[in-house]
């Protein structure tokens, strides 16, 4: 379909982009890879007056190793992320989850920051950054601010990024020794959104799980942590049966929705099954 008319600007810096957003008023929108925005435009579900294209802002691209953390520019493509040596070595969970995003064409165009700022609860990456306690750098007219993953995702398609703000980068702490990770995605087709996804990071010491962080995809209006499973796993042996038993509370605190492919009851069932699988895989059980 043909989108409604809009203006288009392509700033060269974050400051220029913020200024352009402000100048465009309430109906201005950021675009990078366009893999979420363009379908909305084509279906006329969104009709922004100005699109501010941030895909070519140098500061928003690239991945750097900070020693104890990794910072990823928001405009890095999924392809850049999943093939990056720093990410593969230190944030393998993110590389693994990114490899499941849509198809190669989308991964070449779509961006890491775009997928997060879009705030789609069915997206794979929000659960990963929530599980890994990432920090978000947001730029606005009043300068820069840092937001934690817990506060970043507000509601369906709503994040802490204000209408005149831009997500610049995301910093993810490295996991230390003894940690294993796994992203377990369940979908109807290889290219489809997750019905349920589970991002698990598990630390095993002496055959016992000492810490677990579990992020759930598409189980509420925002990505959530399976906190009660995380607590239940503390101190249990890294065996399939114990993990399965600890995973029975995976749906606690979630607010799953129903759609054609999966209703609430089935989603909650999948949360339990997939959490057990993801944790077992991460723990090498």
């Amino acid at each position, binding site marked *: *379909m043909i989108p409604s008319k809009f203006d288009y600007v392509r700033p060269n810096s974050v400051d220029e982009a913020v200024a352009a957003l402000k100048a465009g008023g309430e109906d201005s929108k950021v675009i990078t890879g366009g893999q979420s925005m363009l379908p909305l435009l084509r279906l006329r579900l969104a009709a922004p007056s100005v699109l501010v294209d941030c895909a070519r802002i140098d500061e928003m691209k690239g991945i750097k190793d900070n020693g104890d953390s990794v910072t990823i520019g928001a405009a890095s493509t999924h392809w850049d992320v999943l093939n990056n040596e720093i990410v593969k070595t230190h944030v393998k969970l993110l590389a693994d989850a990114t490899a499941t995003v849509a198809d190669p064409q989308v991964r070449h165009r779509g961006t890491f920051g775009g997928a997060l700022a879009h705030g789609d609860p069915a997206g794979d990456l929000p659960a990963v950054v929530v599980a890994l306690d990432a920090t978000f750098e947001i730029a606005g007219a009043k300068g820069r601010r840092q937001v934690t993953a817990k506060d970043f995702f507000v509601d369906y398609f709503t994040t802490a990024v204000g209408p005149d703000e831009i997500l610049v980068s995301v910093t993810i702490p490295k996991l230390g020794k003894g940690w294993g990770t796994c992203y377990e995605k369940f979908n*109807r*087709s*290889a*290219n489809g959104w997750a019905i349920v996804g589970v991002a698990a990071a598990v630390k095993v010491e002496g055959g016992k799980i000492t810490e677990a962080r579990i992020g759930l995809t598409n189980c509420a209006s925002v990505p959530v942590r399976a906190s009660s499973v995380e607590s239940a796993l503390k101190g249990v042996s890294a065996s399939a049966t114990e993990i399965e038993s600890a995973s029975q509370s995976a749906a606690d605190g979630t607010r799953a929705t129903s759609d*054609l*492919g999966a*209703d609430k009851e*089935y989603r909650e069932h999948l949360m339990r099954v*997939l959490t057990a699988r993801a944790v077992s895989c991460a723990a090498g059980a």
Partner: protein
Amino acid sequence: MTELAEHVAAVGRPLKRKEDARLLTGKTQWTDNIQLAGALHMAILRSPMGHAKITKLDVSGALKYPGVEAAYGADELGDLNGSVPCVWPVTDDMVAPDFPALAKGEVRHMGDCVALVLAGTAAQAADALEGIVVEYSALPAVIDMEEAIKDGSPLVHSDKGTNKCYTYKLQPQGDGAYEAAKAKADVVVKRRFVNQRLIPAFMEPRAVVASPMGTSGELTIWSATQVPHVLRVLLALVTGVSENKLRVVAPDVGGGFGGKLQCYREEILCVALANKLGRPIKWNETRSEDMMATHHGRDQLQDIEIAATKDGKLLGLKVDLIANMGAYLQIITPGIPLLGMFMYPAIYKMDAYDFSCIGVFTNTTPTDAYRGAGRPEATYAIERIMDELAHELGMEPMELRKKNWIKHEEFPYTTAAGLTYDSGNYEAATDKAMALFKYDELRAEQVKRRASGDKVQLGIGISTFTEMCGLAPSRTLGALKYVAGGWEHCTIRVLPTGKVELVTGTSPHGQGHETAWSQIASDTLGIPVDDIEVIHGDTRTSPYGMDTYGSRSLAVGGQAILRAGEKVVEKARLIAAHQLECSANDLEFDNGVFRVKGDPSKEKAIQAVAFEAFSAHDLPDGLEPTLQAESTVDPQDFSYPHGTHLCAMEVDTETGKSTIRSYVCVDDIGIQINPLIVEGQVHGGLAQGIAQALYEGAVYDSDGQLLTASFADYLVPSAPDLPSFVTDHTITPSTTNPLGTKGVGEAGAIASTPAVINAIVDALRPYGVNDVPMPALPMTVWRTLNAARQGGK
């Protein structure tokens, strides 16, 4: 004279397709690429309601938008508002409601056309739709077929007083024959299968350009259609434009699967408006429009009952269908279930067959032909119930099939449905498929997994299908009340330089016919494949034809090519004999060269003869110049390809997810002209049949909202969702056409759906599962399994 390449036997070789370069790179002419000066672009306002009165419609607001030249509702359009034709009145008392291109005061399905705008660009037309004021008053909608035929149901067409379109019965052995057979049975198995609604989802959305050309009053229509010839006749009848002034061109067309076998509202509107305004009118649809306004397929409730002796001999089969017509009838909407009617007895021998079908109107998009058109539905039901019967009898499902199928020495065989199958060898195809599949090893693994209580169970699904190709003997169509014939036409012209123009009335839309047709003509004429140009899809250059659907292009069209080629050779023989000063009977014709028997030094190539026929300096007395011939062939009968498809399925009993582990099929489609194209057709068909089993399904809510109106919700699988197929073949030539060919367009789509579902049911049989609704989504399988487990307790 140009240097002539030598002819090498072409039929049977896996030649790469001539059309690949232009189709794969997109360097060709699709309808939407056609740019005509002064064209007006049409955009259509469609009903967002399933059923409603239009209480107000004011299109004048659209005229204020930039670039808009005209806007129409049904009132403004007046007499130009033609009605979509239905050419298959299956019974004398069939209810056939009017189907105006633009709705007249009432909309009956989501996507019904309400108004239209003509503007200078497509974007201007789309924007201006927002200027149209329309108010609806909701009417009760009816979506469920069984609700629709109950007394007191809301009516789709209140003036008709009923939602029943027709009731059709077939009792080839007479009334009571089935009941008599059933009375002798030890086992009777009855099931309700739901063959869900599908959306064709071809790659190129529909597109039309209609334009006055020249000063003679000619109107040319380019359309992404499978049926330019049929469309010309229908557009002439509907719009009143004289048929000899209408030229319909199907440029390269990006797939159809039956979805472009139609005379659509939008085609009627473009033609009527171009004719009235004297300007080109162009329209192409969005994917969302396509999904709600292109006709849908399947959507039948199938009550099927099979009766057998305790040792597994089939006695009788009874099928009672309820078939969803949608809100209106389109070109052959009511006939689709009847194409399936003949196929329920499939490859099996039985004493009695009893069929009935009720066609029903609902507030949904009209249904019509979709890859297989009735035969997939029939094959699904019979192949599913054969597995259920085997289970009831405690027999191995393949053994039950073997016991009942027509043996290869019994052909030709007249089935309980009254069709005479030409040829087949079910034994050979099955033996080959079972060996490739390693059937016994998989059964052994299944036993182990069942014993160990593996969370992932293994199932084996069988489908020993047959189908009916080569539509169709004209007399048979007449007997079924279909208004047209089923013949096909070909003209072959050998040009002075020895190059060939092959003009066919079939209308390829991506299958590779240009290559296959060249192969047939090449061997007939002894002229290399690359020297043959296939001309098609234009009623001016290929005036006669019945187009492409139902695997008729080879089975019927191929015969016309062969016959026209033979006629060319016969004429060339007369000229060669005259010039070589011998009798025509003394000439041998081999690889494009006429030689005098016993004196092979005296020879003449057919290309040289073509030049002589062109110069006409020295032809036999009374023989007309030029080397060309035409042939119109009405087929003797249908052809009946068959095959054995085997699917090994792993079902995760925790999540309900079904994953195909291996898929083997051995198809017998008779003589293969181009095995590479055959393989491609089988692969694509398998993907579509598997899609019905596991992925696709059009869903409406109770108000008539199509919930699957985009690819985000209507799930078409892609390559990563499908296994690597093992495809092979046996060859049992057809005995009813001289090429020995049968047809392969639908085989994969027809055979695979029951194979996949049978495999899932087989995997879950130990839990008490005896059916899984389609599409077998993970949630659906999980629920089915839970219900069976609870039922067992």
